């Protein structure tokens, strides 16, 4: 074998290893969606269990073609802000040579797949918060917006080798706490303001009423599946370079070992923080595991593991009070605590990097700093909240945001789907529509808010 042949063989082995790595990251990330599916089914009442599942499945299904049509193009086109770079984005046009089977391009397909999974994750974050009253059609539109437009625009700005947030401000967010979790969490808050709470969530005098889901074990298992899937997600946040050290999305060096230390320490700190804050609620504890990882995600390759644990402890401890603030003070019905976990811990994580990991150098960009992280967090929050609020306001104006009260009371499964979740073991829990409407008119009746 000649030296050239040997070199070619080594390079091709590296290229194929890269493909294998991202292929399995994609597969593992699908567990995130299996987790969200179980989580939302369990968090729903029996009468809505399948509608929640269908909504989650459809989010996944609609994100894939729309991310192919325009999501990937947005990522390549928009790193400078709102002015597209058409030359750089040409490879992302859906009819480009790289957007299909191509023997000269082993990378685009697997990178597109990983990014599509990130996109579907943002839609799943929205999905849980709006269960039991959003129209499936409205949800699909909002899911496509957050998954195939908004988050990827944010990623182009702050999670891209040439994104303007990094090039101008030194913004650093290795594992996408900003563009995925902050964007999805703040987007969700904007939607919830227009959607309103579930019927019966608040009494006439404004007190929150607990609406427990029908299966806490399923919700808890779902959250654990999300944690498993998170390892695929985080694997997708590091760049494989044939014959060289791993790098972050910013081309700064990193290792999977660093990710391993801080992911596990983050999970642990988050669970314990939420355990303390919630006095042992399994729902908040598992959510705390997510929040812990999100809290350390921006500096996943930088933190000393005990520091990551402490940051996650704080992040996990924050989510229950944030959830309570939304539910009891602001009267916002976030059915699964999505804002608290994703926007709360995401914002904390972005800012924490500025406090505890400032001064790290970038390649051809300012070093990490608190000011850069503050600016980046503000952009992410504004972009997420603004787009979610405006889009859902538009749907509300057209009267297609929220299910009809009759459908909500009867249950979305019986109204819209040709199936029941437990036809042989659990009777339908919904009262006849007329009886529920009569209850709504009673002195202690339920409040009807939203679209």
């Amino acid at each position, binding site marked *: 074998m000649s030296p050239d042949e040997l070199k070619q063989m080594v390079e091709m082995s590296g290229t194929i290893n890269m493909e294998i790595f991202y292929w399995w990251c994609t597969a593992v990330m699908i567990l995130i969606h299996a987790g969200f599916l179980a989580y939302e089914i369990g968090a729903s009442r029996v009468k809505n269990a399948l509608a929640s599942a269908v909504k989650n499945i459809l989010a996944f299904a609609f994100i894939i*073609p729309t991310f192919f049509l325009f999501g990937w193009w947005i990522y390549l086109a928009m790193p400078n802000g709102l002015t597209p770079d058409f030359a750089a984005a040409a490879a992302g046009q859906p009819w480009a040579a790289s957007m*299909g*089977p191509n023997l*000269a391009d082993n990378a685009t397909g697997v990178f597109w797949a990983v990014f599509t999974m990130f996109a579907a994750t943002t839609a799943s974050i929205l999905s849980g918060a709006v269960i039991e009253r959003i129209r*499936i059609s409205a949800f699909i539109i909002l899911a496509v917006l957050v998954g195939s437009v908004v988050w990827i625009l944010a990623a182009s700005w702050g999670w891209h080798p040439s994104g303007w947030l990094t090039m101008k401000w030194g913004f650093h967010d290795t594992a996408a706490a900003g563009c995925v979790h902050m964007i999805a969490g703040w987007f969700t808050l904007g939607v919830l303001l227009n959607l309103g709470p579930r019927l019966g969530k608040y009494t006439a005098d404004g007190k929150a009423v607990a609406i427990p889901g029908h299966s806490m074990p399923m919700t808890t298992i779902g959250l654990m599946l999300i944690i498993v899937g998170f390892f695929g997600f985080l694997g997708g946040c590091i760049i494989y370079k044939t014959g060289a050290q791993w790098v972050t999305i910013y081309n700064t060096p990193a290792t999977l070992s660093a990710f391993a230390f801080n992911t596990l320490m983050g999970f642990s700190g988050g669970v314990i923080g939420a355990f303390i804050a919630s006095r042992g609620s399994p729902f908040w504890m598992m959510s705390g595991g997510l929040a812990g990882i999100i809290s350390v995600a921006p500096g996943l390759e930088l933190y000393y593991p005990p520091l990551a644990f402490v940051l996650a402890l704080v992040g996990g401890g924050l989510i229950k009070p944030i959830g309570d603030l939304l539910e009891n003070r602001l009267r916002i019905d976030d059915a699964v605590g999505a804002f608290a976990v994703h926007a709360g811990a995401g914002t904390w994580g972005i800012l924490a990097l500025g406090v505890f990991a400032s001064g790290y150098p970038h390649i051809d960009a300012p070093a990490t700093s608190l000011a850069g992280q503050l600016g980046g967090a503000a952009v992410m929050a504004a972009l997420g909240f603004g787009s979610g609020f405006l889009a859902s306001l538009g749907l509300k104006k057209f009267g297609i945001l929220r*299910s009809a009260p009759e*459908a909500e009371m009867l249950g979305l499964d019986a*109204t819209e789907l040709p199936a029941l979740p437990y036809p042989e073991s659990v009777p339908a829990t919904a009262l006849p*529509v007329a009886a529920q409407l009569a209850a709504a008119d009673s002195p202690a009746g339920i409040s009807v808010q939203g679209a």
Partner: protein
Amino acid sequence: MGSPISTWEGAQAYFTAALSPGALMFWVALVAAAVIGAIVHTVRHEEKSVAAVRNGDRG
């Protein structure tokens, strides 16, 4: 349509219709139409379902 290559020697983008921009745009447009059509279908299904509940045909 069909294969854009007649040999694997030197082949790069070899997917169906790879050398036909018009055909590629047709398939892209079809995907876009299917996505939009599915959303419109969902809206109509929801409206019919609610009407059925209001008319006493369900529940």
